[in-house]
């Protein structure tokens, strides 16, 4: 269950007033929110996402004085989360995905988007079914490892290994095609 803005804000204000129980409840409630936030925006692995979630929790704790009690809490939270994500990419000197890329693709060229999807289907079709399914579920449909494992009726580590092997095979194929 996702906590609502009012609920989160009440817990945050409780924490600001010095209530440790309320503060702990807030941090726990933020974990699924932040996981979903980063998962939707980052192609990276689960480890990266968990690192970011923890860093964001620490920032929420140490910088909580900058939350203005009269303003929207989730706006503050996601501003912190977005900053942490950009900082994460900057530290690793990688490119940052643009928010709302799907919209830009739709507006700028439906053809490119559908070509990309066709390419993706073609590439995934060459993989063993289990690997393709795991990649599709986690990377395209945005499910978590646990959800994917439940859906396919296999273990979590099996899903992780499938994703890893599948991506590796895809990467090898793509670099081969480019040459």
């Amino acid at each position: 269950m996702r906590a609502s803005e009012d609920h989160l804000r009440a817990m945050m204000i409780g924490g600001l007033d010095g209530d440790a129980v309320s503060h702990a409840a807030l941090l726990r409630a933020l974990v699924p929110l932040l996981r979903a936030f980063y998962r939707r925006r980052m192609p990276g692995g689960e480890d990266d996402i968990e690192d970011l979630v923890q860093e964001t929790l620490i920032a929420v704790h140490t910088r909580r004085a900058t939350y203005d009690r009269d303003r929207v809490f989730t706006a503050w939270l996601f501003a912190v989360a977005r900053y942490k994500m950009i900082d994460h990419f900057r530290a690793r000197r990688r490119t940052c995905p643009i928010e709302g890329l799907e919209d830009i693709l739709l507006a700028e060229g439906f053809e490119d988007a559908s070509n990309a999807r066709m390419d993706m289907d073609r590439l995934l079709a060459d993989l063993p079914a289990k690997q393709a399914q795991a990649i599709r579920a986690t990377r395209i449909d945005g499910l978590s490892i646990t959800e994917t494992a439940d859906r396919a009726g296999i273990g979590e580590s099996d899903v992780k290994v499938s994703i890893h092997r599948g991506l590796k095979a895809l990467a090898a194929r793509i670099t081969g095609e480019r040459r």
Partner: protein
Amino acid sequence: MNTDTLIKNLSAEVKPVRRHAVGRRIALGILAGGVVTAILIAIGLGIRPDLDVAMHGYSFWMKWTYTLSLAVCALFTVARLARPDAPRLRRLRWLWLLLVPVCLLAAIGAMEMARVPSGEWLAMWLGQSWKKCPWLVLMLSAPIFIGLLWSFRRLAPTRLRAAGAAAGLAAGSCAAMLYCLHCPEVSAIFVLTWYTLGIALAAGAGALVGPRLLRW
């Protein structure tokens, strides 16, 4: 570390946070830096000996008002940029207020120039200390800037270059305010040129180092 353990550790000690904690933190940083700058001026440069006479004249208050109004504007901007959900810079329309003291001082400068023969304009503009003034303002702003860096350690700026520039601007104008205690210059165009240049240098330096020093 496990996320649950992390949460347990973080919520082990939850100190209450007062309202206006951001403002307090910035004020404390500025004050601490300002004290250091004031001591540096008193020891290194010396307070002007005729300060009590000068405080009755208008040019002292002109300089003071000019630098103070810049400092107030800059500090409001710092306080806004210290929060992660700060509005975009172009939405900070009241930043244009910064131009009000500049224009007023320019008007005073023009009136002063109209009253003296044009042969004296150059002497009025350069004064006795135009070569030192901007650099002294820049150097004296360093302790205040460091004070603000300390403030930022608990704050959460997300636009680091803008926050650095605003902090530099605030530090520069506060340093210029304190520098008035030493500086014997009297003309408005001197202040308009060389003080402003020093403050702008401080803001530029802040913008330069902001992304590196304000990261969190």
